[in-house]
């Protein structure tokens, strides 16, 4: 039943679009896959697009927060894009603060933001 999330490479960035509701196993497998891909490609940044995702619970939020910290340890910056209004509202009401996470409205803004971050 578990499916894997495709990770694309564009110049020195990885681009991930999460297209369907994440179950626990897929989320954990994604964490490992992304770190492996960072290791093998030596990418310096990741854009993680969540546009189609219509809810995020605390488990998925924790997995995402962790993968951002882990990527940081490997020297890569992560930008999250496309968080829907309903997702932003429920995350905050739930009491989850994704602190120190760089976000952008959409993929295009996210890539621009990432490129600027990588220049600094």
């Amino acid at each position, binding site marked *: *039943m578990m499916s894997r999330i495709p990770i694309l490479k564009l110049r020195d960035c990885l681009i991930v679009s999460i297209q369907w*509701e994440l*179950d*626990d*196993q897929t989320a954990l497998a994604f964490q490992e896959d992304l770190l492996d891909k960072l290791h093998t490609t030596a990418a310096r940044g990741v854009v993680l697009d969540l546009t189609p995702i*219509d*809810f*995020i*619970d*605390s*488990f998925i*939020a*924790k997995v995402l927060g962790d993968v951002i910290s882990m990527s940081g340890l490997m020297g890569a910056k992560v930008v999250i894009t496309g968080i*829907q*209004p*309903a*997702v932003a*509202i*429920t995350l905050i*009401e*739930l*009491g*989850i603060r994704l602190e120190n996470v760089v976000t952008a409205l959409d993929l295009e803004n996210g890539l621009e933001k990432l490129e600027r971050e990588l220049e600094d």
Partner: protein
Amino acid sequence: MNLRSSVDIITEWDIVAARQLGRNEAKDVGFGTVDQARITTAISELARNIYLYAGKGKIEIRQVTEGNLRGLLVIASDKGPGIVDVRKVMEDGYTTSGGLGAGLPGVKRLMDDFKIETVIGEGTTISASKLLR
């Protein structure tokens, strides 16, 4: 009118099944996208609590009417160890699992009405409802 449906929570996959059922029911009642997300998230948290702390249990979802308002009632029940200090689990930031599951205060904020009944050694039943306004 009292339409009910339920999902037994035994494996991680049942958490997914419970929240999908919740989303469909919320849509069916006519909740908007933000309330659908609130209800789906609340069910996911309650189902995960059952899976983490009780091992197994059940999520039941009922369409209810209160006066002339329609709504959803979510009942999460288990025969687990029960909650020793209910006041403590209702504090923000309290966790016994190292941060898996956002905890019950979050679920309470997402829903309109929230009740815990728990008996040590016998189990816990949490009822949370939301009305369509």
